[in-house]
């Protein structure tokens, strides 16, 4: 039987519906991938430069503007770094509520991604409107869960998009007990819904795509790390937040305006599956039991398990928020006083999409001299390219062009990239020779 190897060039000039602008170039010659580039061509936003000269009091609100979906991550990370430098000891109330606030963001971001972006791919739908035709109850449930996450963010941030609740030293205000009690009732009522979501997500048929990769996520000795901890790696390393640059390197590729990152010269994964791979033993017992019921074996080497990982983290976040709000009391003050000082500091937390690292140099008056922010999507860029290459080989390069393109889209969307939502490629040019 003869097999004709074809040459295919797939150029996706614009990744539409993205928070940012990206594209994909794929060239297959004689059955080999000869070019594969995830190009991010969005003009640099210069956010770090904008921060220079601004007071520490302005930083939480400014960095919240970096992302409309995960502003809490940016706020908490910046606050953590600056509070460390200023020697601020948060009150137990503020420390706890930062984690609750963050749980709200995980719940809304993960639910949005599962139902509006990722799941349609696995049901042969081009978007959530089509998915709603065949799975309306599941989409409704997803929107309810997402709404609950927004509600938690709104409670502590005064609004769910670009919230303004955090200040250096704590929060600007504390929610009333009556509001907390009301949201606790809804969190409790959502537990069975989130459990059903995990069962549904685990039943979704995904490609069997076994890959070796490095997982990187924060680790904490006592809890599933969200807002505190050290940087853990699947090779067993545990890295102090301040030592990030000793192990991770950012570099520029001419085709991308976002920096790539490596861990000891290797691409690496950040995000929900990396977290679950490293920290699943710290899930609350009910979540662990449900996970065992699904049969998902961890650590997973299949990136398509990211969808179920997000579902698991939604249930975790609901349990965490409930636990932490259990003995809620309105504090005497929602913040402690802050005295700025000069120095260099770093902060690190787990944004919904993965590790988020901030680095600041501050002057005596608490103004930013320089800032560096390493977001999860840029860290995942190298891994996405590596994944695409391996996943396409597993998928089969002789698949029709449309199937290859859809598979690439699935792989990219799986990371929930924030260049991004790397969804719905607008145009594609196929060249055959």
């Amino acid at each position: 039987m003869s097999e004709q190897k074809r040459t295919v060039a797939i150029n996706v000039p614009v990744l539409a519906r993205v928070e940012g602008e990206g594209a994909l170039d794929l060239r297959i010659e004689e059955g080999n991938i000869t070019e594969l580039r995830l190009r991010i061509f969005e003009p640099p936003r210069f956010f770090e430069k904008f921060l220079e000269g601004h007071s520490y009091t302005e930083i939480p609100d400014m960095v919240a503007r970096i992302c409309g979906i995960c502003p809490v991550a940016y706020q908490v990370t910046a606050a953590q770094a600056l509070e460390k430098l200023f020697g601020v000891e948060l009150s137990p109330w503020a420390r706890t509520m930062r984690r609750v606030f963050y749980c709200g963001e995980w719940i809304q971001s993960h639910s949005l991604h599962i139902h509006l972006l990722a799941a349609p791919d696995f049901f042969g739908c081009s978007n959530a409107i089509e998915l709603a035709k065949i799975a309306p109850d599941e989409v409704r449930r997803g929107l309810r869960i997402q709404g609950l996450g927004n509600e938690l963010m709104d409670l502590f941030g005064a609004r769910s998009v670009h919230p303004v609740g955090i200040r250096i030293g704590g929060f600007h205000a504390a929610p009333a007990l009556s509001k907390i009690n009301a949201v606790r009732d809804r969190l409790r009522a959502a537990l069975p819904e989130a459990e059903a979501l995990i069962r549904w997500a685990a039943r979704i048929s995904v490609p069997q795509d076994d890959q070796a990769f490095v997982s990187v996520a924060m680790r904490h000795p006592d809890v599933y790390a969200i807002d505190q901890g050290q940087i853990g790696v699947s090779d067993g390393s545990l890295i102090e937040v301040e030592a990030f640059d000793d192990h991770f390197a950012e570099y520029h590729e001419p085709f991308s305006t976002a920096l790539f990152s490596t861990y000891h010269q290797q691409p690496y994964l950040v995000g929900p599956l990396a977290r679950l791979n490293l920290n699943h033993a710290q899930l609350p017992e009910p979540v662990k039991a449900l996970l065992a019921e699904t049969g998902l074996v961890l650590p997973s080497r299949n990136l398509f398990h990211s969808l179920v990982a997000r579902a698991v983290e939604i249930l975790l976040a609901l349990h965490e928020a409930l636990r932490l709000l259990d003995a809620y009391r309105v504090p005497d003050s929602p913040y402690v006083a802050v005295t700025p000082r000069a120095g260099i500091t770093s902060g690190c937390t787990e944004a919904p999409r993965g590790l988020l690292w901030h680095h600041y140099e501050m002057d005596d008056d608490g103004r930013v001299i320089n800032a560096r922010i390493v977001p999860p999507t840029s860290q995942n860029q190298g891994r996405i390219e590596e994944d695409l290459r391996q996943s396409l080989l597993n998928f089969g390069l002789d698949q029709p062009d449309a199937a290859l393109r859809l598979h690439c889209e699935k792989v990219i969307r799986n990371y929930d990239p924030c260049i991004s939502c790397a969804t719905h490629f607008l145009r594609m040019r196929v060249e055959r020779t």
Partner: protein
Amino acid sequence: MSRVCILGVGSPSGDDQAGWLTVDALLDLGIRTGDGIVIEKLDRPGSALIPLLASTGWLILVDAMQSDGEVGRIQRFDQTDWPHYGHGLSSHGLGVIDALMLAGELGSLPPRLDLYGIEIGSVCPGEEAGHEIQAAAQRLAEMIVSSLKG
């Protein structure tokens, strides 16, 4: 309980305030939240629009639009128009029409729905809306008040 929900969608960028200005004009004309009416300004609500439709019998929604029309032109959209304006879905770019189409599939659309667009020009952040937009918002508010009385 069925209610009338009046939503003005916008952002603080020049003419994109058209929806908000319509709400302001309605407030000036005495339309207030209460007695079966909810009136609100929204800043690009995305899928959060859908829960707002619960218990709503009549939705009046005003947003800015850009086409080739004259700035300040008011256009009413029927549901048959929606597919031409949907853009697919993403967590970062879920438009009003997308959200309404999703609500439609979920059976969450109110029985009566009046969707208005005001044709806009400049959308520079921090700038005031143009005179044509302010006049259009006033005109539309008067039309809405008439329909509420009607």
